[in-house]
């Protein structure tokens, strides 16, 4: 079996934000404009959290990219009355947009606050609509959305692998965020495969998970502890 997962090296992250931009472009995420963003309605499936250590001028900034953790025991899933969010056999926490009726209960029950709601129909100012990704559906108003681990890329790689009668190779799938990271802080792969790069990282001493005490069994591993 496969369980897709990700390792994020917070010691490598420089907080440049390239992953956020790449994610927007890859997944047709609407840009809401400054007024709406001011109300807290900005939609970044991936955000970079900044934390400050110490007092000025002896201050240190820590960056922590946060995206959907694709929990093995996801708090968002059981509360949806219409099965709009569910766990796929490959360990993804998937969203079915057409089933979603917009109760927003899933977003309330997500301890990581990584679910985003389409308050209005999306608008793409010129010339952004020319770079829509044809592999990703555009979401209507009134539905929830969030990081998919670039499921369209996973699907693509699996199709090719199937045609060539082999399994998906480690490193063959790169999510948009991991591909665009100049510091190579993000690694994507199969957590069930003991040979994969991501599961090697999972076994290192630096591996932690976010809000681990809630036992959400998340699929995103944070590497920290270096200088």
């Amino acid at each position, binding site marked *: 079996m496969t369980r897709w997962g990700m390792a994020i090296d917070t010691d490598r992250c420089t907080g440049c934000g390239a992953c956020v931009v790449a994610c927007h472009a890859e997944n047709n995420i609407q840009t809401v404009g400054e007024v709406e963003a001011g109300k*807290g309605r900005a939609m970044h499936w991936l955000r970079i959290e900044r934390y400050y250590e110490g007092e000025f001028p002896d201050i240190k900034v820590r960056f922590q990219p946060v995206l959907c953790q694709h929990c093995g025991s996801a708090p968002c899933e059981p509360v949806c*009355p219409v099965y709009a969010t569910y766990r796929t056999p490959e360990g993804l926490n998937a969203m079915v947009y057409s089933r979603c009726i917009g109760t927003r*209960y899933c977003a309330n029950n997500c301890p990581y606050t990584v679910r985003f709601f389409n308050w209005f129909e999306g608008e793409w100012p010129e010339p952004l609509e020319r770079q829509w990704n044809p592999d990703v559906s555009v979401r209507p108003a*009134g539905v929830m959305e969030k990081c998919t681990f670039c499921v369209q890329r996973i699907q693509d790689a699996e199709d090719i692998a199937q045609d060539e009668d082999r399994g998906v190779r480690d490193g063959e799938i790169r999510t948009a965020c991991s591909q665009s990271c100049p510091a190579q802080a993000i690694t994507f792969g199969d957590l069930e495969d003991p040979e994969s790069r991501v599961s090697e990282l999972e076994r290192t001493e630096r591996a932690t998970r976010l809000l681990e005490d809630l036992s959400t069994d998340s699929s995103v591993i944070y590497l920290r502890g270096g200088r």
Partner: protein
Amino acid sequence: MASVATAAAEAAESRESEQVLVRPVTTFRPKLLLGSLLAGGVMGLLFYSWGYQIVNDIGVAGISRPNFWGFYIVNFVFWIGISHAGTLISAILRVTQAEWRRPVTRCAEAITTFALMIGGLFPLIHLGRPWVFWYMVPLPTSRGIWPNFRSPLMWDIMAISTYLLGSMLYLFLPMIPDMAILRDKTMKDAPGSLRTLFFRVLAMGWRGTPQQWHSLEAGIKAMAVIIIPVAISVHTIVSWDFAMAIQPMWHSAIFGPYFVVGAIYSGIAVLMVAMYLLRRGMGIGEYLSDKVFNNLGLLFLAFAMMWSYFTFAEHLTVWYGSEHAEMAVFNLRLYGPAAWVFWTMIVTNVVIPLLILPFPKGRSPLGTAIVGLGVLVGMWIERYLIVVNTLSLPRLDFTVGSYSPSWTELGILVGSAGMFVFLYFTFVQLIPIVSIWEVREGEHIRDHKAQTIIAGEEA
């Protein structure tokens, strides 16, 4: 064949005092109609704002991230809470055979039905895509997907629809003999009028035969017993919308009983205000007597104490445990920039009721109505604090947010109050708000007892 009901109607006419109960529904009252129209106008605000929101998308409401829930859910819990006034109180009083219940039951049960109708609207208003709300209804459609019964929202739908059907039935059953009394009266005064037809349909061919009385009484008794657990399940499940989530100060085992007590508390508050207004406006002080207010005031006091106890227990547990995420919400509520909201609630729900209600003079109609108004405000605040405080402070500090309602949300809140007043005013003009036959039955029982005592003394 002269039916028993017709005889009863004649008897009713001979009683001067009952005229006051019959008159509002048989004669034209311009003031009441004007009240209905005004309240109907305010109700229009609800449908206008909702329509505006449907056309322009849910984003016109003030909710955002992380405050995904706001006024709509607050109002939902508030109105469903109010609905616990009537049916539950009337059922408990019926089951315990409290004689003083007789003039109260119907005006209480009507509150339940109307508050439920309004409360039931809010989950729909709240949806991002209300036009596909039926995805939550277990229909064997071509979609081939059953609703997710692990979701507390599905439990909500089941519980609330059961409660709505049950409380409508429970309101209607004891209405039948009264409808027959009015049918017979209007048949004589104005046969063929619309009013007569209305009462004829609602009387459902009631003749007052012993067989019919027997069935009716069995039905009312059964419904009174059935409706109590249903009502308790409803607000327990509403509380589980919060308690089942793992968010700080929501994930609490006390929420079920806490919400049920709060619901009945706010329900009695509405009942006190409504009874005071009915007494003032319709001159039925003889029925809604000081004794009735005193007795309900005692019940009110009991719930004030229970609610205060639950609130204390809930907050003490959180404070003593002092878990990081919980304490953030706790501190925001008690000492944050909007802490005055919390302390207002403590004044209206704890201080004022406990200062006024323990004293017999405080349990006067005016005293209980004033306390009732305060408690209504306080109970709305309680739900507001539960929804908004927790959502403003997610576990990851980076996503902290705030919430302020938009005009659509305010319009819908005001409109929902208008809708309640509209439904109630209209009801009062169509149906006698005090159950005629039940009051009469009570008088018979009293007379009979008195005669027995006198007979006993003579012997």
